[in-house]
């Protein structure tokens, strides 16, 4: 990529350093990596330093610093992918391509890399190849794909298994992805013509009345934290600022979650309308859909939907004929960082920076994107808000339970016959859900993803709701054949180690240390004190800044609480001290170096 081209890309974003992410994504997409030569150019053009640009580039997983292959394969390494046969698939990739994961073939044709959950847990093993999604991979499919790569075929030609269902098959998406909608509820029910709320309802509702209606519905944020949506909108409306922003958080990165992907595919109009509704309520003029890089394959489609909405006057000036109601939405991609799902890290990222969570106060509703009051809502929350306006808060309150109103869309994956999306009223038990998904021989369920809790059969009568088992929607089922410590807890800890932004001292170190402890126990060197240490050390995570940091030890905490026997049976009974030192292993290297036989 020549300097001129980089300059052009930077100029496309007005040389504005807060749009650094977009510039880098464009360069990455075009060149396949961020050439070292591009960084001084960007720094100069945006009047920043190279170190400043570099700190953003090096933060994100998908920004490559070296050429990463004409075909760059990112194979998901999440726990569900492993359960569904990732290992064989990965080995086939390596054999057929002729390089290991983390490497590029000598001819530069194929690069193989690991990546965290890509939101396809109901159709694993899955990979992103040059941004395109390939699901339900088998060694056979891998051989076919690599053969086609070697022939120099296009990405579409690699997709021999045809396109998935619903809009996935549309000309603008053309992805193998399946929706697997197993149960539709009121939010996903196709009983609504997009635009109706903006056109019809807003005639009768002032912004304050919209907020009032949302407050009456008692809906809480669907991302996981569960903050009352109406209150958030009200705070933002009251906040003083020259302008205000509406963000839709579509950075669903919690392993095992994929419901936003389905909403983005099938109900984008509803989501964008939700953003517009929020904009009306709080008085915002600009909206940004922050979406994870893994869903880049939806970009053209989503842009098309936005364009269509503009044509229909559902976006733009004087929306739906409402004088002075101007609002438009742009799409902001991330580049591979789980922590950006945390709302303030998301804002940092959208400002072209590292996704390091901010400290609060101030909250985004007071000082958010570029310092302006900002509402950040989850995809599902925004879709639901539209339905609430259409059918009324009274209707919505009739769904769910007393303290958890409405429905929740669950992403169910793992050991069950019917993985996919289930929209459920709050209040069902774990048993109900397992039954519905066709789960069998269940040993454990991870509710709410790795940052949630791992529960065993004695807790399957617990209820999915805010006061008992709150969840952002991830629901991973493990049957009796799974090794909870080795396959599940270890994988989750590796995930958190990889995804920590590194800012806070405990989050940067403790997951790493816990993993070492777990390895020690799995290797048979564990003693009672190791279990005590793990509990104590995990407790230190409470002083981290953000939700990720505070919950990053949860896989250990939760398994120690609910599956303690698994730890206890692996530690050495009666032995009080073992730091895992092994003399034989410790002398091998030096003996080899001087050419002598170890004598022990």
């Amino acid at each position, binding site marked *: 990529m020549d300097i001129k081209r980089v300059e052009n890309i930077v100029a496309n974003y007005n040389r504005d350093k807060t749009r650094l992410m977009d510039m880098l994504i464009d360069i990455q997409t075009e060149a396949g990596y961020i050439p070292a030569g591009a960084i001084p150019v960007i720094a100069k053009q945006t009047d920043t330093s190279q170190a400043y640009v570099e700190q953003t580039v090096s933060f994100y997983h998908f920004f490559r610093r070296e050429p990463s292959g004409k075909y760059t394969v990112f194979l998901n390494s999440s726990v569900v992918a492993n359960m569904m046969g990732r290992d064989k698939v990965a080995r086939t990739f390596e054999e057929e391509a002729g390089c290991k994961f983390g490497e590029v073939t000598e001819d530069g044709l194929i690069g193989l890399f690991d990546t965290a959950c890509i939101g396809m847990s109901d159709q694993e093993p899955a990979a992103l190849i040059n941004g395109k999604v390939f699901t339900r991979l088998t060694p056979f499919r891998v051989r076919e794909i690599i053969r086609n790569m070697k022939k120099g075929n296009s990405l579409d030609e690699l997709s021999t298994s045809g396109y998935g269902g619903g809009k996935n098959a549309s000309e603008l998406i053309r992805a193998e992805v399946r929706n697997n909608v197993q149960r539709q509820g009121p939010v996903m029910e196709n009983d609504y013509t997009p635009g109706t709320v903006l056109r019809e309802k807003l005639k009768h509702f002032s912004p304050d009345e919209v907020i009032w209606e949302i407050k009456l519905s008692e809906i809480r944020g669907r991302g996981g934290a569960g903050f009352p949506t109406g209150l958030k909108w009200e705070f933002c409306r009251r906040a003083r600022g020259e302008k205000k922003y509406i963000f839709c958080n579509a950075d669903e990165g919690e392993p095992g979650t994929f419901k936003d992907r389905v909403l983005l595919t099938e109900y984008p109009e509803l989501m964008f309308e939700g953003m517009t509704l929020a904009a009306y309520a709080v008085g915002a003029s600009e909206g940004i859909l922050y979406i994870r890089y893994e869903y880049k394959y939806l970009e053209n489609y989503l842009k098309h939907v936005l364009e269509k909405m503009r044509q229909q006057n559902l976006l733009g000036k004087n929306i739906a004929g409402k004088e002075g109601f101007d609002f438009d939405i742009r799409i902001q991609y991330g580049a591979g960082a789980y922590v950006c799902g945390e709302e303030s890290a998301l804002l940092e990222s959208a400002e072209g920076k590292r996704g390091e969570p901010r400290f609060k106060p101030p909250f985004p509703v007071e000082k958010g994107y570029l310092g302006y009051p900002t509402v950040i809502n989850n995809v599902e929350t925004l879709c639901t808000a539209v339905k609430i306006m259409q059918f009324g808060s009274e209707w919505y309150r009739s769904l769910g339970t007393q303290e958890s109103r409405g429905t929740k869309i669950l992403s169910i994956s793992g050991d069950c016959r019917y993985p996919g999306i289930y929209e459920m009223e709050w209040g069902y038990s774990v048993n109900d859900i397992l039954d519905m998904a066709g789960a069998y021989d269940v040993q454990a369920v991870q509710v709410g993803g790795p940052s949630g809790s791992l529960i065993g059969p004695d807790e399957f009568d617990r209820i999915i709701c805010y006061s008992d088992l709150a969840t952002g929607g991830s629901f991973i089922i493990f049957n009796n054949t799974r090794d909870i410590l080795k396959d599940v807890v270890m994988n989750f800890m590796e995930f958190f180690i990889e995804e920590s932004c590194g800012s806070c001292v405990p989050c940067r170190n403790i997951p790493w240390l816990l993993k070492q402890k777990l390895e020690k126990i799995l290797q048979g060197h564990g003693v009672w004190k190791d279990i005590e240490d793990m509990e104590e050390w995990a407790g230190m995570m409470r002083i981290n800044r953000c939700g990720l940091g505070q919950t990053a030890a949860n896989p250990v905490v939760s398994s120690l609480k609910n599956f303690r026997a698994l730890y206890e049976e692996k530690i050495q009974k009666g032995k*009080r*001290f073992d730091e895992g030192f092994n*003399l034989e292993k*410790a002398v091998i290297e*030096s*003996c080899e*170096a001087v050419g*002598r036989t170890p004598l022990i």
Partner: protein
Amino acid sequence: MNKRKILATTSLAGCFGCHMSFLDIDERILDLIELVEFNKSPIDDIKKFTKECDIGLIEGGVCNSENVEILKEFRKHCKILVSFGECAIMGGLPALRNTIPIEECIREAYLEGPSVSDSNEEGILPNDEELPMLLNKVYPCHEIVKIDYFLPGCPPRADLIWESLYALITEQEIKLPYEVIKYD
């Protein structure tokens, strides 16, 4: 008066600086002699344990197989084991090699370093079976055996050694003034 406590000391991968600092307790050494009897220690040059000891002081980290052996022997024969000095606690300066592959260290020390490149023309590496084997890194003592107390410093201040030792001998709580806890 109670029976005198029995004390053992050793220097593993250390420089004997901690022992020197021990001697820096000056005239208090006369008090000490009243309170303890030395067993295996460079101070009285007893090479092997002849008695079960109350307190063992370990200077130096663990860099080779002999260190491991001696440390384990100390653990076996001492009721209380104390790491004294940075090397015993965290490997100390010898642990500077911990981030360098051992093979590179050996090459530098015997083949390529400026002081050896001319003098070891045959490229002899020390591999006699009598020699202790080097470990892949220098270990803190508490990663090999259980250590009960830690006295930091390079070397630990004489006052720190005295105060702590006196408390251990007389079975009192160790109370340390601010000035004595140092890492250098």
